[in-house]
C-alpha cells in the first residue's frame, strides 16, 4: 500500500502542460508576510515546498482541487486551470 505522499502521487497519471497553471504573485510575500507557509501543509499533492527563502511550486503534481486558491492567507496564488486536456487525469474514482 502507498504510504508516503511520493508513493501516492506516483499512482497518478499526469499530462503536464509545459506552462504552470499556478503562479505565486509575489514571492516576497511568502518570505516576509506569511507565517508557517500553510500551503505546504494542506496541499494534498505536496505541490508547495518552502526552500528556506523561496516557494517552489511543483505544479505538475497538482490535483486541481483549489485548496490553495481559497486557503492562501495572502491571496497570493493565481490559480487557473491547466490548458485543455492537460494536468491530472483521474482514471478511477
Amino acid at each position, binding site marked *: 500500500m502507498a504510504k508516503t505522499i511520493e508513493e501516492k502521487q506516483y499512482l*497518478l497519471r499526469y499530462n503536464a502542460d509545459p506552462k504552470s497553471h499556478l503562479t505565486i504573485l509575489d514571492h516576497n510575500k511568502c518570505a516576509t508576510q506569511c507565517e508557517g507557509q500553510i500551503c505546504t501543509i494542506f496541499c494534498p499533492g*505536496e505541490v508547495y515546498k518552502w526552500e528556506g527563502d523561496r516557494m517552489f511550486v511543483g505544479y505538475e503534481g497538482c490535483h486541481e482541487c483549489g485548496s490553495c486558491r481559497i486557503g492562501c492567507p495572502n491571496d497570493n496564488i493565481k490559480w487557473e*486551470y491547466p490548458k485543455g486536456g492537460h494536468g491530472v487525469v483521474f482514471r478511477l*474514482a
Partner: protein
Amino acid sequence: MPEKFDVIVVGAGPGGAACANVCAKNGLKVLMVERGEYPGSKNVMGGILYRKQTEEIVPEFWKEAPIERPVVEQRFWMLEKESMVSMGYKGKEWAQEPYNNFTVLRAQFDQWFAQKAVEEGVLLINETVVTECIQEDGKVVGIRTDRPDGDIYADVVVLADGVNSLLAKSLGMRKPMQNEDVALCAMEVLNMPKGKINDRFGLEGNEGCSVEIFGDATKGELGTAFLYTNKDSINIGVGTTLSGMIRSKIKPYELLEYVKNHPMIRPYIHDGESAEYLAHLIPEGGYNAIPKLVGNGVLVIGDAAQLVNAIHREGSNMAMASGKMAAEAIVKAKQNKDFSEVGLDSYRTSIYDSFIGQDLKKYKDLTHTFENNPQYLNEYIPLMNRAASQFFTIDGTPKWDKQAKIMKSMTAGRGKFGVVKDIYQAWKVMK
C-alpha cells in the same frame, strides 16, 4: 458568423451531462465543453450514487451503467482511538430493483453518463477550457475557450464547472469562498479481490456496503472518513473543512494514513493494493453559500452552485436534479424567446422549492455550529465509547450502578446545563 447553439454547458460532470441530456431530448441544439481528457478525468467522489435522480435522466440506468455495487448496508462508526460504537442498517430490499444507491467509480461512470447525453444529440468537446463568458449588453451570449478561434455563441450558458467555478466568480455571481465553506478530501482506491471484500464486510455476490466514520478519524476536526466497497476495490477517504486542516496543521495524506492505520479500520483494508490517490474539494457552505443562480443568459448548477448536502453526503444527485431543472427552465425560456434573468427565473424557484432548497435550508446552520463547537466530536464520541465499554463490561457491578456512573460521567465534562444546551443546539440545527 460563428456557429451558434441554443445551449452551451460548461463541464461534463453529472450536473452538466444531465442538463445537456434533458435539453437535447427537448430538441435543443446543445454543446457540452469538458476541460479534461474525457468526462470524469477531473472529477472525484467518495463513491455513492443515488438511484432516484439518476433514473430521472436515464431510466433503469443500472442495467447498463458502469456501477460497482448496489449498497445493501449503511454503517456508521463513532470512533475513539482504540474503540468504536457502531450502528447501521442492512436490508435485502436494497439488493433488488429499483435499489437505493450504488457505489461507482466516477472516471468510469461520468464517461458513460456524458455518452448518454451524446446519444441524445449533444455535441461534446473534450480537452477545452472555457476561459470566460462572452458578454454583450449585460447578457451572457457565449463562451471564450483556450482553443484558437475559440469563441462560441449560444442563447444560454450553463455553468457546471465544479466547486471552484471560476466562471461564476468572474461574473460576480458568488462571493469568494471561505476556508470553512469547503471540505478538503483525500482518498485512495485500494484493489482487493472480490471474495476478500465479501468476507470482510459480510456481503454476498455483488452486494455493497458503505461505512461513514466519525470522531477520531478526523482527530476531532469537523469532517468524516468513509469506506465504500466497489466490485474488486475499496475506496477509503477522509476529509475535514479546509479551516480545520489549517487549524490543526494536518497534511491531508497523513490524515489518510492515520485512518488507514486505525486499529478499527486496518483489518478491513490491510493488504489492499493502492491503485489511485485523489484529492478534491467539496462545497459544504450549504444554504448560505448558494450563489446567484440565474443571470441574463446564464445559469449555475451542481457543485458550481454549491449544491451539496454534507450531512447526508448528497452532491451528485443534487447536481443532476439541478441540471434537469435548469434544462426545463431553458426549454420554457426558448418557448417564450426570453433568455433574460426574468425569463430563466423558473430555475431559481424550482431549486428553492425542491428537496435541494428545502434540505439545504434545514441544515443551513449545521456546519458552522459543529465547526464552532468542537465538543460534539471531541467529547461526546469518546463519551459514547466509554459508556458502551462500561455498560458491556461484566465486572460484577450492578447495571443500575453502571447507569448512574455513566449518567454522572455524561455531565462531568460540560456540566448538566452545558449538556442540555448542547443537545438543544444540536436539535435546533438538525430539526
